């Protein structure tokens, strides 16, 4: 019996445990659901769940492949250059996804940004990479510098600052400021990441309407109608 809260709750299995990353034998299926308010999210045909409070610029240039979750406060700058997001990505609150700029023959041009499938970008990060491949986990408060190239199966720890033009080889863990290789990842990290994102998506579920509260709502409506009969009744926020 889970408490229904209005805030987004993240399962503990999504948080990094230690700097020396060791893969557990099995991934625990998170038992709690992550509830979101259905009215504050847009659900597209491809299964994307994009918060209405996320700030998307140049949305015609933002391509989201499917089953991606974009949480409130995220800023995606599609107006500077095209932004491609893969499927099953999770972009947590207040992150900024911004295509990097490049000086070329005396002019500044903005380089398109590609993010691969099954990526998790945690809250308050600034992503200015040129390319993020699949199965990448970026921690909180990270700064990924301009024109970085993150290969597949890379983990960026919390609070790292990646210098511009860093190339992250696959199966590495980057940490620190400036970001350097801190640990290595086992080859099964790909499946770990895939499971994490897929279970996150599966458990990212609309808040079900509490039958108790709907009774309260109808009681409130009836009192409102008796007081001000001219007003049209409106369902209060659940």
């Amino acid at each position, binding site marked *: 019996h889970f408490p229904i809260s209005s805030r987004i709750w993240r399962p503990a299995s999504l948080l990094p445990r230690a700097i020396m990353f060791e893969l557990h034998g099995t991934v625990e299926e998170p038992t709690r659901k992550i509830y979101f308010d259905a009215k504050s999210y847009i659900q597209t045909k491809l299964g994307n769940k994009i918060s209405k409070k996320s*700030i998307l*610029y140049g949305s015609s240039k933002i391509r989201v492949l499917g089953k991606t979750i974009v949480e409130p406060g995220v*800023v995606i*700058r599609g*107006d*500077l250059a095209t932004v491609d997001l893969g499927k099953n990505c999770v972009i947590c609150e*207040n992150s*900024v996804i*911004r295509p990097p*700029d490049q*000086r070329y023959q*005396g*002019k*500044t*041009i*903005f380089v398109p940004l590609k993010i691969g499938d099954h990526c998790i970008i945690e809250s*308050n990060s*600034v992503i*200015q990479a040129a390319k993020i491949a699949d199965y990448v986990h970026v921690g909180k*408060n990270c*700064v990924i*510098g301009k024109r970085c190239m993150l290969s597949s199966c890379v983990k960026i720890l919390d*609070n790292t*600052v990646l210098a511009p033009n860093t190339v992250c080889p696959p199966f590495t863990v980057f940490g*620190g*400021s*400036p970001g350097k290789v801190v640990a290595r990842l086992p080859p099964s990290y790909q499946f770990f990441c895939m499971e994490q994102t897929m279970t996150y998506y599966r458990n990212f579920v609309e808040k079900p309407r509490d039958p108790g509260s709907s009774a309260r709502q109808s009681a409130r409506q009836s009192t409102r109608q008796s007081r001000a009969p001219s007003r049209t009744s409106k369902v209060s926020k659940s």
Partner: protein
Amino acid sequence: MADRKDDKVDKSVLVTRRSMLEGSFPIEIGPNTILHPECRIHAHKGPIKIGSNNLFEEQSVIVNNTDQTMVIGDYNLVEVGARIKAISIGSRNVFECKSSVALGAAVGNDCVIGAAVTICSGDKVEDNTVVYGKDRERRTIKTKRNQADVQCALNALPKLLF
């Protein structure tokens, strides 16, 4: 809000849709400055005077919590998430992503404040220094590229933003 009539924002300044000029004191912005979306300039307890040709990127926060006028020079680049609370900022500086300059600090000209660096109160960053890394190491270099970098970005952006 009444204060927005006292603002002296030049006509060539590009103030994008969600950038916010807040506070109860006038804000003066010089010509050719670009304010990206989500940038916040908050003249909380005192006026702010910003020079020309500056670039304020997303989630940058410029707050004046003192009575005195906060002065920011020309050709500064304030990157994503940078927070400036200091009163005197020079020209041609670069404040990289998530850097923070506390109240009571001062920044000279031609400096680079690296990513995620916090300049604490009472610290004065001299001209031509680069502050970087976790331990806030400093190095004096001749950074003459800052103005050209900002100028290039300023040329390219008005066509992309609106």
